[in-house]
């Protein structure tokens, strides 16, 4: 694997649309549940161990070469909110575009042609990791990190939170990110033998509920 390729892929400036999404932070801020660094940390930790773990496992499994359409269906079953399913597919399309420009590969072209409506973003992330010569661990790390990095950046904009405090939250979560990435890769390897049911299905009721409420707001800063 190329550590440099991992940095390119994990960079928050990688142009795949993430900047317009708060990962549920905008709704949690409006509901008064994120008010500062401490509650941001608690939010990010909960998202990491639920949606983050599932995303990381999907990405790792895709990087291992598991059938992307089976993973996409598994992602649907783990995402009850139609707003979140739509966002995941839209971000998947955006990531696919960036992927094909940055690490062109026949496999990416074939998947893009087969799924013109897009696939869940973590599945595309795993395919992109493959194209970039990266492994399942790298894909899992990218997905897990993204699950907390997005809300942290968004909260800086939403609450004018001190960016040092927000980044310190991410640093404090680092050991848990490591564990989630490890669990995700273990689960992805089980998928090779046991099928996609071996993927974690960790859910977060409030992320699901708030996503639908947020999608119905007439005015908001973030797309999700």
């Amino acid at each position, binding site marked *: 694997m190329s550590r440099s390729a991992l940095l390119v892929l994990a960079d928050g400036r990688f142009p795949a649309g993430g900047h317009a999404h708060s990962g*549920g932070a905008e709704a*949690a801020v409006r*509901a008064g*549940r*994120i008010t500062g660094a401490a*509650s941001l940390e*608690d*939010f*990010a*930790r*909960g*998202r*990491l*161990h*639920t949606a983050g*773990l599932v995303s990381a496992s999907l990405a790792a499994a895709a990087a291992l070469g598991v059938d992307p359409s089976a993973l996409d*269906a*598994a992602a*649907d*079953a*783990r*995402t*009850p*909110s*139609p*707003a979140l*399913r739509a966002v995941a597919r839209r971000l998947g399309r955006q990531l696919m575009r960036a992927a094909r420009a940055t690490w062109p590969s026949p496999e990416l072209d074939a998947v893009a042609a087969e799924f013109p409506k897009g696939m869940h973003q973590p599945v595309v992330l795993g395919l992109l990791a493959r194209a970039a010569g990266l492994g399942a661990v790298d894909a899992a790390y990218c997905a897990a990190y993204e699950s907390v990095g997005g809300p942290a950046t968004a909260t800086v904009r939403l609450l004018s939170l001190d960016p040092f405090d927000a980044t310190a939250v991410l640093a404090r979560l680092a050991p*848990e990110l490591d564990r989630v990435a490890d669990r995700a890769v273990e689960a992805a390897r089980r998928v090779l033998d046991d099928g*996609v*049911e071996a993927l*974690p*299905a*960790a*859910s*977060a*009721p*409030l*992320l*699901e*509920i708030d996503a*639908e*409420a947020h*999608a*119905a707001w007439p005015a908001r800063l973030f797309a999700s």
Partner: protein
Amino acid sequence: MNDVSATAGIVACDDGRGGTALPVLESDGPLALRRTRASGSEAHVMLVGAMSGPHGGDRLAVRAEVRRGARLRVGSAAATIALPGQIKGEARYDVRLDVADGGELHWLPEQLISAGGSELYVTTRVDLAGTARLVLREEQVLGRVGEQPGRLTSRLTVRIDGRVLLDQELACGPDAPGGWDGPAVLAGHRAVGQLVIVRPEFAVEPVAARMMGEQAVLVPLAGPGALVTAVAADALRLRQVLDGVLAELD
């Protein structure tokens, strides 16, 4: 008390006279099943907990099979309380539900209460044929009044013709992965529930997503199903929300 291992089973089939027969109704250990008065073509069964289990180390299972064209409604007489066992260790409670084409199952148990110090892993797995119908309610209450909850992990999987429609796991209580009580997951709410409704006609005309108050939402799943996800301060308020949706969709 020693660990308990028990499996109760129900089989419902069309009795050929417009009603539903129950050729199998097997109680086991703490899991007692009683047939109650039917309504129309629908057979009713009540799960009567003979003990207030499951305790740590117990292995309990319930299996229900609804055959072609049969209609079954299963409820429970009281809430199930997960309690700590004399020996350390996780209890398991596995529910397996199968519904054949043209069959209909209403699975409406009372709440599952996770008492302080308990450890329980619940799995509910539903396998539906393409034209089967389902209403399934699942409610968890974290701790008895004024008590910290035990460790509870609950996984719910619904398949239609082998294809997964819904797969959700919720873990809470001591030693659950971090943030479970934080702003992304439960935010201090002590009751959480889901209502799954599967109807073949949802494939053509899915429900529209909408909020049911501030802490519950009705959504169309990626298939012929609908789901209500709700959190509430307590079991009573949770039930009010879920009952409200059920009444509206009936």
